[in-house]
């Protein structure tokens, strides 16, 4: 396995822009699912960091979250996760089902999978139309668990086992913090190089 190479400052800026565009589309989609509720996007972060450090990006290893995972294939490979604090997940289920939350039963889990699906595919659609790359999402997988357990399972399942990874993190929240979430994108084999080649016109490194 090749060691991940730290992106140049220009590449970092580009990734931030990808995060911006993807998450912009994703939050717009989520907002329309929630009857046009206003969602504020936080400026995306692009980080080149060690695997354990990346867990702190999502609020620490022990935080209970709902995590939706989608594998990306096609012209580029990658892994996307939509992680939201457990109380926000419950709030979303309540709003979308229109009754009080009881437990993470089959119905609420399928609602969350669908929300994750919409959020992540909207993000990917934006990247795809920006670059003309074919980007294919897998079916979503859902886990309600400790953030660290979910994140580490995704990384290792994705064979992202180098000591360092590049992550694009986007976040949003609404007034009163009732809805907040993280959208994470990590590249698979080949890294973000295809994006760099197309958008920066640079040769492969």
């Amino acid at each position, binding site marked *: 396995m090749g060691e991940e190479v730290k992106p140049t400052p220009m590449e970092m800026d580009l990734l931030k822009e990808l995060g911006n565009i993807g998450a912009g589309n994703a939050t717009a989609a989520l907002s329309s699912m929630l009857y046009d509720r206003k969602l504020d996007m936080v400026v995306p972060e692009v980080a080149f960091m060690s695997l354990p450090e990346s867990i702190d990006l999502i609020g620490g290893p022990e935080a209970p979250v709902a995590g939706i995972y989608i594998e990306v294939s096609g012209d580029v490979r990658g892994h996307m996760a939509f992680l939201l604090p457990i109380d926000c997940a419950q709030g979303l289920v309540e709003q979308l089902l229109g009754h009080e939350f009881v437990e993470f039963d089959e119905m609420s889990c399928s609602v969350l999978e669908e929300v994750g699906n919409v959020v992540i595919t909207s993000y990917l659609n934006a990247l795809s139309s920006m670059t003309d790359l074919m980007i294919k999402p897998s079916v979503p997988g859902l886990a309600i668990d400790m953030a660290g*357990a979910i994140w580490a399972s995704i990384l290792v399942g994705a064979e992202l086992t180098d000591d360092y990874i590049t992550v694009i993190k986007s976040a949003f929240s609404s007034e009163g913090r009732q809805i907040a979430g993280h959208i994470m994108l990590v590249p698979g084999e080949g890294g973000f190089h295809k994006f760099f080649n197309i958008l920066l016109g640079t040769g492969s490194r």
Partner: protein
Amino acid sequence: MAEKFVNMSELKVAKGEEVLVTVGLGSCVGVAIYDKGRGVGGLAHVFLSESKNETDVKQPGKFADTAIPALISAVTALGGRRSVLEAKIAGGANLFPKLANSTLNVGKQNVAAVKKHLAKHGIVLKGMAVEGNKGRKMTFYPKNGMVLVQSIGEKPEEI
């Protein structure tokens, strides 16, 4: 009582009243090795089964094949007796059971590798809480070898 946190891929030792804690074990496996008579032990948060061709392993706790010998030497260096060392393990879950493509089921492989390397080094496995579909938190008390394992929304269970 001082708690030391063991992050992913790390390995730490403790003695006496100190407690070692690792959280967010999904497919990862927490491995505790201790000499309960002397009250010393170590805990590793293993991320993968084999270091394979990674020649320069910076964090031996990352892989099962490197973590176990490293734990043994760290615990004996702290006064543990090699011949009486025991182990308890937790983790190796599959958090996404519905995703049929089981690249995500690394948990099972991790558990198998940890067991294999414990056996290879002659360490008795005294307790475990492994596999299943839930993440785990592991709290290890080197003073008596007690290990508590907890999943979200559940009570801690002693193994």
